[in-house]
């Protein structure tokens, strides 16, 4: 256990936790920016290919992280088309990978939430003279708690993910090492109890983030 406490008490560990939170919260934020309008638009607009897009986005819920990592690796590598950006093995590449993973989750869950409300209240909104586009803010406001759940689902995917960020981040000490890649590393060093201890810290952080978001929601309802 001395291993565990000296690791958790170190400045390096604080950086690892901050990077984990920074990367996954950034990716969650971007996935909301992208997924929220996408999901809402799929719920209220009727256009050619809409059904296909809905099926497609729902299929992406099962996107394998290691494949996303590999594809981004090839794209971001200096030998790849976006090599000049020099993003490979940086936190930016990790945010990108996790955004790709989280966006379909947010979009699919927002779509479901908004589509249900649009079925129930769409008629009434249109009687009041609102177009589909103008109904979106109202519907999003009504669906806000389910949208928060969508955001948390996206966050859950990103904070726990290791396959994609290991490939594009490289698990560089002090730079791209996160909670999950540190756990994988300690496991490979045979420090199993330390790895498990870090796992519990990760779960604790995840619970704390969810609790904070729900506390904010409760405060709002008062």
């Amino acid at each position, binding site marked *: 256990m001395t291993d565990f406490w000296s690791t958790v008490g170190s400045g390096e560990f604080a950086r690892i936790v901050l990077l984990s*939170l920074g990367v996954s919260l*950034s990716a969650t*934020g971007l996935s909301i920016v992208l997924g929220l309008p996408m999901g809402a638009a799929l719920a209220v607009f009727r256009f050619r290919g809409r059904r296909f897009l809905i099926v497609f986005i729902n299929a992406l819920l099962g996107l394998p992280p290691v494949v996303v990592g590999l594809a981004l690796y090839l794209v971001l*590598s200096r030998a790849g088309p976006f090599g000049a950006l020099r993003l490979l*093995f940086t936190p930016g590449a990790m945010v990108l990978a996790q955004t790709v993973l989280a966006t379909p989750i947010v979009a699919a869950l927002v779509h479901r939430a908004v589509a249900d409300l649009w079925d129930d209240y769409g008629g009434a909104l249109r009687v009041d003279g609102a177009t589909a586009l103008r109904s979106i803010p109202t519907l999003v406001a009504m669906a806000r708690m389910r949208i928060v759940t969508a955001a948390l689902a996206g966050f859950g995917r990103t904070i726990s993910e290791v396959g994609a960020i290991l490939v594009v981040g490289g698990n560089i000490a002090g730079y791209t090492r996160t909670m999950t890649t540190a756990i994988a590393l300690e496991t490979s*060093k*045979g420090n199993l109890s330390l790895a498990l201890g870090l796992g519990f810290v990760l779960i604790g952080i995840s619970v704390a983030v969810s609790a904070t978001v729900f506390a904010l929601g409760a405060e709002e309802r008062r």
Partner: protein
Amino acid sequence: MTALRHLAALLVGVLFATSGDGAHAQSQAIVMASTTSLQDSGLLDVLLPKFTAETGVSIRVIAQGTGQALATAARGDADIVLVHDPEAEDKFIAEGHGGERRQIAWNDFVIVGPAADPAHVAGGHDALAALRTIAAAHASFVSRGDKSGTDALEKRLWRAVGRQPSLASGDNWYRDIGGGMGAALNAAAGMSAYTLSDRGTWLSFGNKADLKIVIEGDPGLINRYDVILLDPKKHPDAKLEPARRLRDWLVSETGQAAIGAYVKQGQTLFHPSAAQPK
């Protein structure tokens, strides 16, 4: 909407905090593609901070199997490589990806296995004879199967034995796990199997369970670590100047002394050998 707005503000803050950090640290850092054995043994954690303190150049280590590390460098995604598979290195250099190879240290490989020693090979110094016996006894053997330096040596040893075991040919005692050194040791510990390990990783490994060294001291089990610079013609983007400083430091008296001073459980893990390559 307050909850969402709070959340959005938090996210934007965090995004700026992380991206700022990344751009700032970019200038004085090079990427080194290296092996899991050097990382898992802890050598790089004590070695590289000394170099960084002296020069201000920070080193970002990507720890992969030697095969993958050389492939990473060949794609232009690293500035310097530090690996341990002479044959794969020859190919890398022959293809024009790099050169100016220098050996920095050596240690040796060992065969570890369960204390019960079902194949009765413990105590020997002949790796080929041990592998022959293990194969004949159908005792479980874990293979890295990841084209790392250790994996390459294991395959060479089997070639010398004249028998490449594989699941396809019915050798279900031969377990190809496709993972790093630590993963292979975890697997061997879990299934009471034999495996080939570099001594550095073995000594610092924390989950030995009932595994112990069964074969050591075979001259064929020597393990050489070489540093290679990227070729500026093929890889003009590689940061050659700071990479050369690192290479020169590793083979310098200071660097060699630092390598030799790394001790675990009273044993020297890596013997500096820049002056007299093995």
